[in-house]
């Protein structure tokens, strides 16, 4: 057997054991008196009933296509509406609070918070990546999208998030934060433990990029981030 197969088998056995222990702890916590709501029971019964219908195969083909077309039209209309809304960029002020061991960054706005997207509605990414970097991974968490680029040796982390957050806390013990203005955006730059970080907002979302890239390369990301 090759090393790979032996290691995979060992990992399989270890994970089985790990899961057994982990789930045993959960099982001890089970409350057998859990009172599932009537609404939940109804939803589950609905699931069971739907399974028993004999005509799902028809639905699975033609019906699904029709549903997709309808969904696409609705999505296209929503995007058009959002684009118009996005023209009205509210004024946002970045407030930096420096404490002894960390720094808090808040996005303060003059307008009602309801005007900001509560979830990511438009995805923004750097349109031009530093030499050698390619997209490795991107995960959408609803209120934030985390993306990792890599050149094989170093990773570059890019995050777009909603600015309903009250405060973002950064470990900045002994770190000096530099404030820059780029394309009318207030941009924060700092280096912490060898990692360069840049943060900014475009009026709708907040952005953070960090990695081993130098300051100029990170500033270039601010300039090229578009949807």
């Amino acid at each position, binding site marked *: 057997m090759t*090393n*790979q197969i*032996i*290691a995979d088998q*060992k*990992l*399989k056995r*270890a*994970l*089985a*054991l*790990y*899961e*057994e*222990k982990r*789930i045993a702890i*959960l*099982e001890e916590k089970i*409350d*057998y008196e*859990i009172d599932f*709501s009537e*609404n*939940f029971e109804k*939803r*589950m019964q*609905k*699931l*069971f009933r*739907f*399974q*028993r*219908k004999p005509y*799902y195969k028809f*639905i*699975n083909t033609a*019906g*699904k296509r029709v*549903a997709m077309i309808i969904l696409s039209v609705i999505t296209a209309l929503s995007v058009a509406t959002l684009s118009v809304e996005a023209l009205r960029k509210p004024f946002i002020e970045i407030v930096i609070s420096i404490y002894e061991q960390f720094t808090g960054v808040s996005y303060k706005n003059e307008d009602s918070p309801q005007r900001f997207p*509560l979830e990511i509605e438009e995805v923004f990414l750097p349109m031009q990546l530093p030499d050698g970097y390619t997209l*490795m*991974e991107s*995960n959408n*968490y*609803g*209120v*934030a999208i*985390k993306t*990792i680029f890599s050149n094989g*040796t170093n*990773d570059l982390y890019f*995050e777009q*998030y*909603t600015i*309903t*957050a*009250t405060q*973002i*806390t950064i470990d900045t013990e002994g770190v000096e934060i530099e404030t820059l203005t780029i394309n009318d955006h207030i941009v924060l730059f700092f280096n912490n433990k060898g990692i360069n970080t840049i943060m900014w907002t475009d009026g709708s979302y907040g952005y*953070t990029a960090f990695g081993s890239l130098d300051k100029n390369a990170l500033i270039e990301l601010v300039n090229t981030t578009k949807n």
Partner: protein
Amino acid sequence: MLLFYLSLLETEEAKSRFELLYNTYRRLMYTASYEILKDHYLCEDALHEAFIRIMKNMNGLDEITCHKTRSFVVIVAENESKRLFMKRKKNAAIFLDDGFETIPDFNQDINLIIDKADEEVIVKRLKELSKDDAEILTFKYFQELKDKEIASLLKISNSAVRKRLERARKKLAVLLNSGDDNYD
């Protein structure tokens, strides 16, 4: 929504297995979900989503009462709960620290390190990994799911699955390498 549900299950056997699975694990799944959401009604929402996701994968499951299936349904419930939690969370403060830790350069043979380590030590080190890392390793090596199946369960791309697996294996190897448990 009706159309969606209808397309999920394919055989009569799978249908009855699904109901058996629901009755067997709903309390365990609820408990796993409650650990994350701490809210009864949110847990029910997460469980509903989890069962829809499980329905899609019913044909690939082993015996309903086996350990592998129990682990699978718990991870799916946890995953849907995390997704719901992230979706509802309005405070982005944790994101900077959440799952973005950097991995030190590591060029050693990961297979060899795992192969040399004691199983109990690996279990100990798995507990030190983030839940996301342990989850993807479990899907791949214990549940023996294909990358495509993991991608569908986690709603990420195939390449993201490969990258996450690579990172999780590397983190595990770093932990195994850093401890002195192997020499006990």
